[in-house]
């Protein structure tokens, strides 16, 4: 018989299960105490599970990177503690960054990419890349500028000429806000081609409808990532006018895409992804994670996952990463000043 008591019991069980599921995601969150809890020796090792923050919801680029790296690390035992991925969505990353900053210590990392430069420049976060410790750069992706197959533009220079004539005649769509990545990568490229970037027409489609707007003929150009463009180009639905890689890429389909430089436009844009930690992270801990990431990137498990996602290795040591970020920040700051988006 199904009586009241057994029903109650099963309900309590369900709650307990749910709670423990949430709990395990958060397990390191409870035990975290601020400050430097690592030993100040050269061979620092994590003493408890590591919290890997993806400052966005489940399923996006940051989340995928965090989950993939955490899985390969655990599989290959490079780090023998658990790496728990925790999603902290909100504010284009700002909520997650504020969390990491508050938490501090040696057992919290987060995945990051160009928005750590754009979002503070847009005035949407008080914290920027200087408030964290760069640990290592991991992968690189490139931007692609795409038009539909029946577009009159066949290469980047056609488009730039048309933009020079009348910037208002061409609508560009991207999946992020004005002043964020999809917008600024395009601004940067056409500026290098001599276009007056103050009058560009940018449409933001943050529900991810950019590609369908392009295929439906509602907009002229789609500024996006290489991965999103490749399959559509292979099917002959779109033309890739240019990619922002410094050198031509190898591989089926992507090798046919012309870089900006090949078309005489002196620009490149790397969509990098890497890991950072809190500002107060011990140098020994930084060195530990830096080495762990380097080691991980040499494993076969990593290489297979990386190829499935179409990522390119782009290892940078903590020091190189920091220098790279400072330079990128300066370039973007100038550019955003020019289009009047810096706040």
């Amino acid at each position, binding site marked *: 018989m*199904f009586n*009241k008591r057994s029903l109650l019991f099963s309900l309590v069980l369900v709650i307990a299960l*749910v709670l423990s599921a949430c709990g395990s995601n958060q397990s390191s969150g409870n035990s975290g105490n601020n400050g430097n809890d690592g030993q100040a020796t050269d061979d620092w090792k994590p003493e408890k599970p590591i919290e890997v923050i993806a400052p966005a919801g489940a399923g996006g680029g940051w989340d995928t990177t965090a989950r993939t790296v955490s899985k390969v690390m655990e599989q290959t035992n490079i780090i023998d503690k658990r790496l728990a991925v925790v*999603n902290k*969505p909100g504010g284009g990353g700002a909520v997650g960054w504020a969390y990491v900053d508050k938490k501090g210590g040696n057992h919290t990392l987060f995945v990051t990419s160009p928005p750590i430069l754009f979002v503070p420049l847009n005035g*949407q976060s008080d914290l920027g890349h200087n408030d964290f410790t760069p640990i290592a750069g991991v992968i690189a992706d490139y931007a692609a500028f795409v038009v539909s197959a029946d577009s009159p533009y066949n290469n980047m220079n056609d488009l730039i000429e048309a933009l020079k004539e009348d910037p208002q005649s061409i609508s560009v769509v991207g999946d992020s806000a004005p002043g964020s990545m999809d917008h600024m990568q395009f601004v940067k490229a056409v500026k290098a081609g001599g276009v007056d970037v103050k009058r560009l027409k940018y449409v*933001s489609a*943050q529900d991810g409808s950019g590609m369908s707007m392009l295929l439906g003929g509602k907009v002229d150009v789609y500024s996006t990532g290489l991965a999103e463009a490749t399959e559509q180009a292979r099917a002959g639905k779109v033309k890739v006018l240019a990619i922002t890689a410094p050198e031509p890429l190898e591989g089926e389909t992507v090798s046919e895409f012309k870089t900006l430089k090949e078309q005489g436009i002196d620009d490149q844009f790397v969509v990098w992804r890497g890991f950072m930690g809190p500002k107060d992270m011990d140098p020994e801990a930084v060195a530990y994670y830096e080495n762990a990431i380097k080691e991980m990137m040499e494993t076969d498990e990593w290489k297979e996952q990386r190829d499935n996602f179409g990522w390119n290795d782009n290892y940078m040591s903590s020091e190189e990463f920091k220098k790279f970020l400072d330079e990128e920040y300066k370039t973007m700051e100038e550019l955003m000043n020019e289009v009047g988006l810096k706040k």
Partner: protein
Amino acid sequence: METLNNMLYGFQVVLTFQNILFVFIGVLAGTLIGMLPGLGPISAIAIMIPLSYGMDPASALILMAGVYYGAVFGGSTSSILLNAPGISGTVATSFDGYPLAKQGKAGKALAIAAICSFAGGTISVVALMLVAPIMADFAVSFGPTEYFALMLLGLTAIASLSEGSTTKALISATFGLIIATIGIDQQTGTQRFTFGNPNLLEGIDFLIIALGLFALAEVCSLILTRKKKMFEGDQSVGSLKITRSEAKEISGPIARHSVLGFILGVLPGAGATIASFMSYLSEKKISKDPSSFGKGNIKGLAAPETSNNAATSGAFVPLLTLGIPGSGTTAVLLGALLVVGVQPGPLMLTDHPDVFWGVIASMYLGNVFLLILNLPLIPFIAKILYIPKALLISLVIVFCMIGVYGVSFSTFDLYLLLGFGVLGYLMRMFSFPAAPLILAFILGGMMEQSFRQALTISNGNYGVFSESPVTVSLLVISLFSLTFPILKGKLSKKGNLNNNNDLSA
């Protein structure tokens, strides 16, 4: 003939022991996740992605698709029993499902929901199989102007959602529109009504508002009336049996809304939530007895339940034929395909026919599993209503909290949830309907963005709204929808004067 061959091939892929097991695990997990208020399929699938590494691509997608439509199937349970929508696609289910449960017809409501979900799911899979390649063009034909007109059409129905005062319904809707503007403005990147709080930068999540206004508000009034019995008809679950006349009554909505749901599901950006609302509203509009909606009309339950499941299959059209994700959940599914080494895109049908046809075939099987799984369980699930009221109230609160926290891991969202619970209770006390608020919130945000996208593209020229025939027809229908009740009111007054109600003919 070719479709038949393809389908046989699809079933060849699915009918292996391993894949049948995956379909079963997927729909079971989905149903359970869907039942818990707040927890939706997105996070469940995202967490499963690393686990699917190394799996056969078809099996992986079969499993995850099962979680997706299983959650939409199961989400109706808590909407009906507790007024706490399991996922956003089942908010409209609670409008008539919960009143039915309160009248002691919980068993019947759950059975109708299960049958409509099954019918909507199955009919739309047939549509998916037959017309997927044709519908691909339709999916991209909707641009900013078309979306604007579609959302406007939905908004014109707001007045019809009110039970008493139309003015109160409009005030409630206006408040919903205001809430929709909170966060970073997508077109300029400016912060609006965030008061410098980073938690508000991305706006307020739909589920927080739905759970607050419906579940917590209900809990508030239950606490205040705790001496009274919670349900009429001495807490009985009631019979599961659907009479012949009831079956006849719901067959119309099932036929209509499996088509409407499928079409809205195909459009990237619309999806199950908007489909279920549109279905509920249109069913109410064409009903001969609209005043019984919201009070336990089985048509009002059948329409959104059919539609949200049909929309789920529809959402696979742009994903499988174009590689374009139409919703948050399909975007995560797209990520899952990458992990198993399939590049989603227009060539998937030629490169990976096993994935394409396998998933479609698995959805037939999954829907059958869901029906078999859910129908016999109804008497047990419905026994939730036998739990003492004090305990049930606490459980609902706990589940709502877990649901909201599980999505964002943010305590700020919990305060928001409580705030909306109090607001919902106050609105009830002063008889402001909550449904217009939630509808305006969900349609308003998209409507504003589409409107401004359209004007950016046209350099501010309003003529852009008259260029596409789809936009024009939708706008004309909106106009009719807005003016028809007024005209009808005037006409029926005349009819009453003539002492003869000739409108009913």
